[in-house]
């Protein structure tokens, strides 16, 4: 790994100021960044350490009707949080299923959201793929088993975060600190507006620019009668990225679905909110047959490639299972 200057930032403001320069990268746990640096895919001159930022370590808490989490909260802390297990079990389960115990003990909330895609052409420094400034997306003609089945136009990555879909379904907001020279400002970005599609800018996956740091992530405390769930399908039971995934948040009153949020992931370059499914759920009584139809509806418009047609079937299953689980929790009360 190439050496670098290491900035031990004391808070988000200092980190944001330090991160304005060229070839400077932010680092949380670094479990993804170190992997890329060892592969030679990322070669920063300056790395800004966020683990030393005390404000990013603010504990998981409920304040003013919102659940707030410091950006450097670990996946283990999210998975084991009694508060999250109670109000947003789908988030706790998404964190608890990620990667391995070792990686969950270090990986952070913001790091999970901002990790780079797992596309093997992107991860291999001998392929000058279009995401890395080259002219070709090798997955179009090459091995595309794990690639996108929606919005696969110019770059066929799938978004790798398993916290992103459930946080998006919960309507999460990112609290971002931005530096412009010495001036520091704060702003809120809805997670659904955070993503950048390859057609907008192929080199990045989100709108975070130089000098910007996620300080906290929050979402409105789910109302009574809300159930949340996250389901992913994988080749291996653990230690794997999802083949397809779905997060669902349902609110059920008097036996009727009054609010629904469904986000599919691992099937497109960004997490995908599925409005057509939401429209068919609202006002109906929850049932397995309804959720099965919802799963089928979610695959409308899929454009699978040579090796990934199986994902169309699998994501329909993930959507159905997530809805079944979310509905059971909504009806079950506390969960």
């Amino acid at each position, binding site marked *: 790994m190439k050496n670098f200057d290491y900035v031990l930032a004391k808070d988000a403001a200092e980190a944001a100021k330090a991160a304005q320069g060229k070839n400077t990268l932010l680092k949380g746990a670094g479990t993804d960044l170190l992997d890329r640096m060892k592969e030679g895919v990322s070669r920063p001159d300056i790395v800004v350490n966020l683990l030393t930022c005390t404000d990013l370590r603010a504990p998981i808490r409920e304040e003013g009707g919102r659940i707030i989490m410091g950006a450097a909260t670990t996946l283990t802390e999210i998975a084991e949080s009694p508060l999250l297990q109670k109000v947003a079990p789908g988030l706790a389960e998404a964190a608890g299923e990620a990667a391995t115990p070792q990686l969950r003990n270090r990986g952070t909330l913001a790091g999970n959201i901002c990790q780079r895609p797992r596309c093997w052409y992107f991860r291999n420094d001998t392929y000058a793929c279009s995401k890395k400034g080259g002219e070709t997306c090798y997955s179009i003609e090459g091995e595309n088993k794990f690639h996108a089945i929606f919005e696969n136009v110019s770059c066929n990555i799938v978004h790798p975060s398993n916290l992103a879909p459930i946080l998006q379904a919960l309507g999460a907001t990112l609290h971002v600190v931005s530096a412009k020279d010495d001036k520091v400002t704060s702003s809120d970005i809805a997670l659904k507006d955070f993503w950048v599609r390859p057609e907008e800018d192929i080199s990045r996956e989100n709108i975070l620019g130089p000098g910007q740091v996620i300080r906290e992530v929050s979402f409105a405390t789910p109302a009574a009668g809300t159930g949340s769930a996250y389901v992913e399908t994988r080749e291996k*039971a653990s230690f794997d990225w999802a083949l397809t995934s779905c997060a669902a948040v349902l609110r059920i009153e008097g036996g009727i679905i009054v609010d629904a949020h469904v986000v599919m992931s691992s099937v497109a370059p960004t997490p995908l909110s599925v409005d057509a499914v939401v429209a068919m759920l609202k006002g109906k009584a929850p049932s397995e047959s309804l959720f099965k139809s919802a799963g089928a509806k979610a695959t409308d418009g899929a454009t699978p490639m040579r090796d990934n047609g199986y994902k169309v079937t699998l994501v329909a299953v993930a959507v159905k299972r997530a809805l079944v689980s979310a509905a059971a929790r909504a009806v079950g009360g506390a969960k």
Partner: protein
Amino acid sequence: MDGKKIEGSDALSRRGFLKSAGVAAAATTLIHETRKSLESTIPSDATVMRGESELKFKLNGKEVTAKVAPSLTLLELLREKMDLTGTKQVCDRGACGACTVHLDGRTVNSCLLLAVDASGRNVTTVEGLAQGEQLHPVQQGFVEEDAMQCGFCTPGMVMSCAALLAKNPKPTRADCAEGISGNICRCGTYLNIFRAMDRASALMKAGK
């Protein structure tokens, strides 16, 4: 990756193509110039590590110090500078678990942990488990149940098992499987490892 230095600001488009030592030497000057021009973006009172600096942390119960560069991983520090070669390097990408150590009692991949990030923390390696000649119950369980073949994954497996049992003294088979889900054994000794964990659990209950 050494010997694949690249030209500062041109890094993104040219990655992987400039591999010769000659190019690397020419590029070094450029990197220095780029860095110099960048320094103003780091606040003047911020703590910045450049080159080697002194690291202090607790290793197997003892305060230790070491000179480390920011890019050195804890795994490299342990094996190459501390002479603690029980912790194994296999994939070096957090995918196999052979390098598992405890950081403040939690399992982590030491290959993906910068040594400097262990500053002030409590690190335990497989060498720190036994009390003198008295093996840790997990180590004793591994011996009694023959829970290893080639042995290369064993230190990492032992560290994952020890962390699980510290948190959950009587794990179910499913808990055990989850506990070592970040460790891969090429020889397929998993069933014996599960038996070793049962044995360790019993030993711990008996206070041994």
